[in-house]
């Protein structure tokens, strides 16, 4: 070190800094591999993969048309969808009941629009059973909500109704404290 003059010393420090920065970049590149992936059929019959939404927070909602709480969950998801941009958040509602066809899903969406004036305008799809088999919780209940971060890592899982932000005043106190989606999404978007 004694023999290194000032200009060389500066060059050495500069190289070290560049090396540290580059290491960080390489690490970032490694992290950018999408952690979870699955495919499903959308309402047009196209195959969609989860990793297509890389860089966005993705909510995956497992549901079925016969499930009353799943219908309530749709209203909460609508509120969630409206409060974030499409660059930030995407929602995928996957029907897990193999008895229910794409036509059933379209009828369900139309009924929501007609009777409740709620336009369910996010991505809907039909699962052939493989996605649910992989992601269902031990108790196998619906609605089940997954929040995936921008890199496809599971950030949050919840079985049962998850509210957007406000818990209804008439929520029975003896029942389990409900989950809120907004704080979970904000953690990923604004951390």
């Amino acid at each position, binding site marked *: 070190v004694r023999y290194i003059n000032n200009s060389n010393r500066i060059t050495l420090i500069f190289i070290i800094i560049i090396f540290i920065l580059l290491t960080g970049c390489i690490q970032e590149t490694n992290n950018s591999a999408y952690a979870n992936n699955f495919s499903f059929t959308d309402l047009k019959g196209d195959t969609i993969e989860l990793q297509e939404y890389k860089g966005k927070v993705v909510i995956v909602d497992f549901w079925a048309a016969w*499930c*009353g*709480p*799943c219908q309530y969950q749709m209203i909460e998801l609508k509120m969630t969808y409206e409060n974030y941009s499409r660059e930030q958040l995407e929602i995928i509602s996957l029907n897990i009941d193999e008895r229910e066809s794409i036509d059933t899903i379209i009828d369900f969406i139309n009924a929501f629009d007609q009777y409740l004036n709620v336009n369910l305008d996010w991505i809907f799809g039909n699962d052939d059973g493989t996605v649910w088999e992989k992601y269902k919780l031990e108790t196998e*209940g619906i*609605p089940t909500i997954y929040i995936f971060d921008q890199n496809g890592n599971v950030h949050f899982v919840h079985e*049962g*109704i998850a509210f957007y932000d406000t818990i209804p005043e008439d929520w029975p106190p003896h*029942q389990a404290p409900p989950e809120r989606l907004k704080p979970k999404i904000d953690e990923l978007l604004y951390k």
Partner: protein
Amino acid sequence: MNYCINKNIYNQKYDNVLSNIVCKKEVISDMKIRYTILIILMLCIFTVNITAAEPTINNIIIIPENPKPESSVTIIADISGENISEIILSVSECDAGTGACFENHHVTMTLNQQGTYQAEITLRDSRGRTDSLEYQFTITADGEEYIRSEESWKTYLDISPSNENNQGDEDKTNDTPGFELLIVITALFVSLILLKKRDRR
């Protein structure tokens, strides 16, 4: 129309040239009003007819009122409507606390002698996940499908542990009457014998 005639008389009296034009306008507006009323009436009748044709669920009876898990449940629904061809009942076994549903039954309801629709299901959940039942009716009438579901259509299951304990106690009482008493009496006898032995020493 009467109003127009009166107007004519009024105009003739004052020899008004424009009276006929005014009258025609009045006739037209009068006819317009009549046609409007007629259209509204027809629309009302049409709407009422449509409403009357839609099936409605007047009452639902669940037997037993609070069924136990894995037991049989009979659902009787009083449904009014014209040309009902099929009613499919969907029953979900749910957890009212979290709002998650776990099991689902799709059954076709049959018309019984009382003129109500009936179906029987056997509850499936054996893992203690559910505490309530939710219902959804898909009614096919005149080729149209009507889905009926209300939040208030909920049945709570009998999952109280106290009932199970009570039943267990009752069973025990029936199977082993006085069993505990026998132990106490034996213990008393043994104690007496031991005390007597000690006195003798």
